[in-house]
């Protein structure tokens, strides 16, 4: 069993020394910058962006919730910071209300936007957190792959550095997370199947520090993802991405935990890659369904990461699950065009047709001008300064169509 010791962040600041006291999180820029000391990086700049401010973060990359196992806890983010040993038990300190956010140019990354106020703020999980934004300069001649690795490790180390400051404080809340039930009972046994996008450098997801590309579906202890077993290096599809922050707080897993013993039994968590070719998609889908059946799932919630290509993984997997007697429900962002009349899905399931909509990718939004922007000078996509009013599709707003089910955004034919 894993216990989350939650420390609420009420106020943030930069200061001489990193500390957490009575809800105030202060960060030393020097101590933080030292964590990015890497031959691939020229330097970093740290700035807080908090809810309600007239601020925008552009070119948003990964976001991480500050967490630590505390002194002697065995290491969080196993395989990247800690040793690659299974985690997910004992105690984990969580700084709730804060995030460490990398922002800037990387190849293959698609420009993502977070607004700290205005209509887009409620569409992103980062609209409600105080974000320590890390802007970076690559070292001269450093290969981009090395820049990405240095940045990813630095962001994780900074997240741990912040949480370590709270490890001695009393927790505001103590959350005891039940393990999935292995015993049959009267309640339906419902699990989660989480697809991870695995499409090579800059579009890859790491499990225990290893790229999950080429992997096979497997069961994880849900506590393992609380402890950072899944880390994102996937910078495409801003609206349809699953950053590390949302994996750490997996909304489907949290909902299954919340209801376990009430109207269902939480049966477990299966992770699966999203390979790029059709034969692999078919093989992986059958494999995932077999793992779920073997683990005794009566039903599964299936989630994806990415656009139309990932719809094929969803459809094949959902149909394979139902063929093995496991009821399946999938979460989909819709690609219905700006006027909402195009086909919602690229590849729909044939038999497992129960789907939840996380909104239409192409819905237009107008984001008002802001006083300050971090992450870059411009929105290259629109060719305008980053602080300007932006007229763009929901597709560009970070996690607005969260495939892990974070948000309330949805699309319907019944609204006017």
């Amino acid at each position: 069993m894993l216990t989350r010791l939650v420390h609420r962040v009420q106020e943030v600041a930069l200061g001489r020394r990193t500390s957490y006291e009575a809800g105030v999180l202060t960060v030393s820029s020097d101590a933080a910058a030292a964590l990015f000391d890497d031959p691939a990086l020229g330097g970093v700049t740290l700035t807080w962006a908090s809810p309600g401010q007239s601020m925008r973060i552009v070119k948003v990359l990964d976001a991480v919730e500050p967490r630590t196992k505390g002194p002697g806890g065995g290491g969080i983010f196993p395989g990247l910071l800690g040793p690659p040993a299974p985690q997910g038990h004992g105690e984990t300190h969580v700084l709730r209300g804060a995030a460490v956010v990398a922002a800037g140019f990387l190849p293959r990354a698609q420009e993502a936007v977070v607004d700290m106020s205005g209509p887009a703020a409620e569409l992103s999980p980062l609209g409600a957190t105080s974000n320590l934004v890390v802007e970076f300069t690559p070292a001269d001649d450093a290969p981009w792959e090395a820049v990405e690795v240095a940045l990813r490790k630095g962001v994780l180390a900074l997240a741990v550095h912040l949480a370590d400051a709270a490890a001695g404080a009393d927790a505001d809340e103590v959350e005891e997370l039940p393990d999935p039930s292995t015993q049959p009972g009267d309640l339906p046994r419902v699990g989660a199947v989480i697809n991870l996008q695995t499409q090579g450098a800059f579009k890859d997801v790491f499990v225990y520090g290893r790229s999950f590309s080429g992997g096979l579906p497997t069961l994880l202890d849900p506590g393992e993802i609380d402890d950072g077993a899944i880390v994102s290096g996937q910078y495409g599809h801003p609206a349809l991405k699953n950053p590390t922050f949302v994996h750490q707080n997996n909304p489907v897993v949290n909902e299954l935990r919340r209801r376990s013993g009430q109207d269902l039994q939480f049966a477990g968590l299966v992770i699966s890659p999203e390979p790029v070719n059709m034969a692999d998609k078919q093989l992986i889908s059958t494999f995932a369904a077999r793992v779920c059946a073997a683990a005794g799932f009566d039903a599964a919630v299936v989630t994806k990461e990415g656009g139309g290509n990932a719809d094929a993984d969803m459809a094949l997997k959902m149909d394979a699950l139902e063929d093995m007697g496991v009821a399946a429900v999938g979460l989909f962002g819709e690609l219905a065009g700006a006027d909402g009349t195009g086909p919602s899905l690229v590849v729909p399931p044939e038999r497992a047709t129960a789907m939840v909509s996380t909104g239409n990718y192409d819905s237009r939004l107008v984001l008002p001008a802001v006083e300050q922007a971090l992450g870059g000078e411009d929105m290259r996509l629109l060719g305008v300064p980053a602080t300007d009013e932006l007229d763009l599709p929901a597709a560009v707003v970070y996690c607005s169509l969260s495939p892990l089910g974070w948000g309330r955004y949805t699309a319907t034919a019944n609204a006017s």
Partner: protein
Amino acid sequence: MARVVHYINQFFAGVGGEDSAGQGPTLMDGPVGPGKKLAELLGDEHEIVSTVWCGDDKAPDAADEIVELIQGAEPDLVVAGPAFTSGRYGLACARVAAAAAEAGLAALASMHEDNPGLDEAGAAPVVASGEVARRMGPSLERLGAAAAKLLAGEELTADDGRIGKVARRSVMADAPAAQRAVDLVLTRLAGDRDATEIPLPRFDSVTPAAPVDDVSQATVALVTEGGLVPDDNPGNLESARATRWLRYPLEGDTLASGSYRSVHGGFSSVHANDDPHRIVPLDVARELEAEGAIGQLVGEYFVTTGNGTSVANARRFGIEWATDMRKSEARAAILTAT
């Protein structure tokens, strides 16, 4: 009193038939032609303040101009048709309604469900009309009732004769998606196999054409969605979400490297630009022509970009290609895809 503007074509405006099909949009006061009966059906609460008509040949590509005229009359609702199964008129009604809706006006079109314009109405609703103008009476009754319902602020459903695609809009749900997904799991486990937030999309099923009897006698066209154009892209073909297709001559036996490039934005075009035959296989096709394996090649190729292309545009390209080929000697086409 609500203000309604009615859109019709030159024929129903009483201007003329095919001889007047090239005329541009014109604004007239009050109801005209079928609008008179429609005005009666709308009763005293609503008034058809103006009618805009346009020639059938002109109208499908003049929707924006037509909507500008309509906006001048400050309508609460734009009504277009009924267009029955008339293709050009249906396309015009649909595009006028779509453009009006895009401009923020309430709009409604009427046509038969086999009308090729049906899918072009964008966010505007369409209600069914009869197949031919002989069914004008009942078609107007349905249109009038639907117009009144829209003006009352209500949504149209299948019960109102609504046909075609229904626009899906993004809104905020009461609960997070993860919670709704778990709810849906329990609903499905309880035996409801139809529950879903996303209805299955209806994709066209295409019946393949019969095989060509004798390919050695057939004239064959080369067609591609690979975005291969002359190097300076003279027709400004888009890299994604194409709205057009283009034709370029096939001269000689090969396509010179460096003279062509693919503007397609959905794949790395390095190899295509290196050897354009990877997209348009003129070299091999010429060999087959010389061997007598095919009759002869059409002297030009058709090209568009298949990358995020809307289904409506893709369907239109297909219709235009088929129409074009039927008028030529071509009896077979090779479509190279990327």
